[in-house]
């Protein structure tokens, strides 16, 4: 490309230009390699611990780093309720595990039902209603989403303690934390999440449909059940699913508000991790991962079917 007419200045400029081009190309090549390497490493980071956990749940030995051969005995131990580890006081028992699962389901179902109803009603009021203090109310309901769960957990525990003391003084009835306190706490944070999800659905809904129903003589109740509710249904279901998941998964808030005999699954797992870890924990964790994969897969399928037409 060089021409004899180019003077020394021109050659310098061409040289600088070529140098810059080379540098730009080097930048691009590094960038392209990094664009593939970095995500690959992140996926490894996210998945290796989980895959290792699953693989070693079939390891014939208590180690999680040395492979001693394939076995299903940890799973059999869970099924047969055969104890292999743990101190006398903190033995792992399948019965306790199942009880924890049952407790978790009781809490999650109750909290989801109430929170979905309250959250949906609230979403309707905030999106459609005009009343003083609406903006303030709106922002107040974001607080449970941003405030750390440890703060929510301890403040509720202090609150319940004071209320229980007052009740005992006034009525002589001794109340203790249990399902009631856990469910109340879960509803308190779940309403906000349901509100966010249902409102997103309400925002995409055509308001003229409701107006048309009212013009045709339907009253507010009829309009809601015949028009608004069916259209909102996917949003309500999504909100309920989120509330259910958050409730099943919650450890911190439950930890401070649970009582004797209301150990939920996360509390049970925490107890196992804090005391001597039984070798069956890999198998239990694998089962929990399998259940969540099945649930997520099912909800994705449902959503796809819901938006299929």
């Amino acid at each position, binding site marked *: 490309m060089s021409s004899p007419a180019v003077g020394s200045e021109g050659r310098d400029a061409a040289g600088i230009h070529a140098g810059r081009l080379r*540098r730009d190309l080097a930048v691009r090549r590094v960038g392209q390699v990094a664009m593939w390497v970095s995500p690959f490493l*992140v996926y490894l980071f*996210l998945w*290796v611990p989980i895959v290792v956990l699953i693989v070693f749940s079939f390891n014939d030995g208590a180690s999680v780093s040395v492979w001693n051969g394939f076995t299903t005995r940890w799973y059999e131990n869970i099924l047969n309720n055969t104890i292999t580890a743990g101190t006398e006081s903190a033995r792992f028992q399948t019965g306790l595990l199942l009880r924890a699962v049952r407790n978790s389901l009781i809490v999650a179902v109750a909290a989801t039902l109430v929170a979905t109803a309250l959250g949906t009603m609230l979403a309707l009021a905030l999106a459609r209603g005009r*009343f003083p203090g609406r903006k303030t109310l709106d922002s107040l309901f974001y607080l449970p989403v*941003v405030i750390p769960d440890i*703060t929510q957990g301890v403040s509720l525990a202090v*609150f319940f303690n004071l209320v229980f003391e007052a009740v005992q003084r006034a009525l002589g009835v001794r109340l203790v934390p249990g399902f009631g306190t856990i469910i109340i706490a879960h509803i308190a944070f779940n309403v906000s999440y349901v509100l966010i999800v249902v409102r997103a659905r309400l925002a995409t809904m055509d308001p003229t449909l409701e107006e048309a129903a009212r013009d045709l003589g339907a009253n507010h109740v009829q309009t809601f059940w015949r028009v608004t509710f069916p259209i909102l249904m996917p949003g309500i279901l999504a909100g309920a699913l989120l509330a259910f998941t958050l409730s099943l998964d919650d450890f*911190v808030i439950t930890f401070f508000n649970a009582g004797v005999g209301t150990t939920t699954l996360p509390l049970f797992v925490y107890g196992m991790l804090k005391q001597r870890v039984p070798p069956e924990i*890999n198998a239990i964790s694998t089962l929990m991962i399998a259940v969540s994969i099945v649930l997520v897969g099912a909800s994705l399928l449902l959503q796809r079917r819901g938006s299929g037409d």
Partner: protein
Amino acid sequence: MARRGAEPGEVARSAFLAGPATVWLVLFFLLPLVFVAVASFMSRGTGGAPVPPVTLDQYERTFTVFGPVIVRSVNVALVTTALCLLLGYPLAFFISRRRDPRVRLFLLFLVLLPFWTNFLVRTYALITILQRDGLLNGLLMRLGAISEPLQLLFTQGAVIVGLVYGYLPFMVLPIYASVERLDMRYVEAAHDLGANDLRAFFRVVLPLTLPGVIAGSILVFIPTIGAFVTPDLMGGTRGLMIGNLIQSQFGGRGNIPLGSAVSMVLLALVFVGVLVYTRWGQEEKT
């Protein structure tokens, strides 16, 4: 204005719809927070209960005795946020640049799936990798890189790794949403005007995706500053954070006023994050 004014019937309907949730929020969320705020100005009575007289002692103790832990928690949260950004941005960019929407969905799914498994189970999975006789030490020893297993667990580093592991999806999703909406013609224009990839990234791509970056950073910062489970299981005594201080003060031999004061400081830190988000982190309405 007359039409916009609230009719009595409408107010009643709104009160019926919003009432129950509002009562619940006030009774089981706001009131308990007010109690904790009041308790933070009280003295410690028998059994750690808050009693008069009113005092600022708890805050003084919070900043003197617990000062180092608070500073460390802020550091841990900031480092975690920075690491999530360094790992999450390229990942979000990579996913959004795949042409096939099914590939994009699958790659996002791979980020989210670990996130849908129980937090404690995920933390435990990471512990098995990092523990003394875990896979990482075993691998390093077999490779001859080390002769003695390293103390990886129960360090501040372990807490940071655990938090990054737990909250990375919070960073990836908002950035993905931002990058997805990025008009690549701006990048082409930058190239045409002579910018190389690096310059085009820092002058065009990054500014345009900044709302996603800020949103993701706040979504990571807020839960990590108040983390309890990760430092509790992975930090040992060297990795204690604000959350562990609060928990210990509300336990059996605790001090509720002191724990309340620490909680208030944590809330203040969280609100700094929320302010940053509402100021710079929201996508402008288009």
